């Protein structure tokens, strides 16, 4: 059997912030995500389930990463926040249509 086998490994990183993502904390989050991107990670699951508060500065970090990853064929999947009020904000801004959303990190990973 003349069989050429090539194995492909796709890197997917799950990042789960466990604090407020706001104008004060978002630069640190952005720096960590940018570092991963610069290391060649283009597929992210951002698990927001333990994020109690997300403002527009935090949302800017998510969109910025989404744009960068999609430009190189990657993507960012979001896990819904457990906080219902935060979920409503993602619906209000239609982020749930721009990003592929999942109920858990496992679900987001299996969908990649």
């Amino acid at each position, binding site marked *: 059997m003349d069989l050429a086998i090539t194995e492909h490994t796709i890197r997917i990183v799950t990042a789960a912030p466990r604090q407020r993502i*706001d104008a004060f904390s978002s630069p640190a989050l952005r720096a960590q995500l940018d570092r991963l991107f610069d290391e060649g990670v283009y597929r992210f699951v951002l698990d927001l389930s333990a994020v109690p*508060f997300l403002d*527009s500065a935090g*949302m800017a970090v998510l969109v910025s990463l989404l744009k960068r990853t999609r430009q190189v064929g990657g993507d960012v999947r979001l896990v819904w926040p457990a906080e219902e009020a935060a979920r409503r904000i993602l619906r209000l*801004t239609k982020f749930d249509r721009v990003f592929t959303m999942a109920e858990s990190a496992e679900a987001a990973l299996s969908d990649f």
Partner: protein
Amino acid sequence: MSDIDTIWLDLPASHKYLNALGASIAAVLERAKNLDDPATTSYNVQLAVHEICTNIVEHAYGGAAGGRVAVALTLAEAPQRLIVELRDTGEAFDPADAAEPDLDGVQIHGYGLFLARSLMDEVSYRREQDSNLWQLVKRL
């Protein structure tokens, strides 16, 4: 409304203590009566005020150190509502800088004022001499 129901905060114009503003709003709203959905109301008001305050830090003061933001939180009755006033002495606000976001596209900036207007019943701005005065009202 009497001054006795007003809480005053004098914050440095930096992102560092925005959490103190949110905590104060949450504490005042705990004294409101018969809220339908206290958790969501508190979250929404905190986010709306937070966005205006962030705007002041970044645009009115342009990120420069030393500025202050004076905040008045008033729980008013008949009808019950929370009135939030923010005063700063930075550059005047230019509405032209605050276009509505395109919600059908993907954009990085432009959600702050949209969120504030969406989550509060009233958001108004006026320039008073050398100050900017924002007033946000949420009926409770």
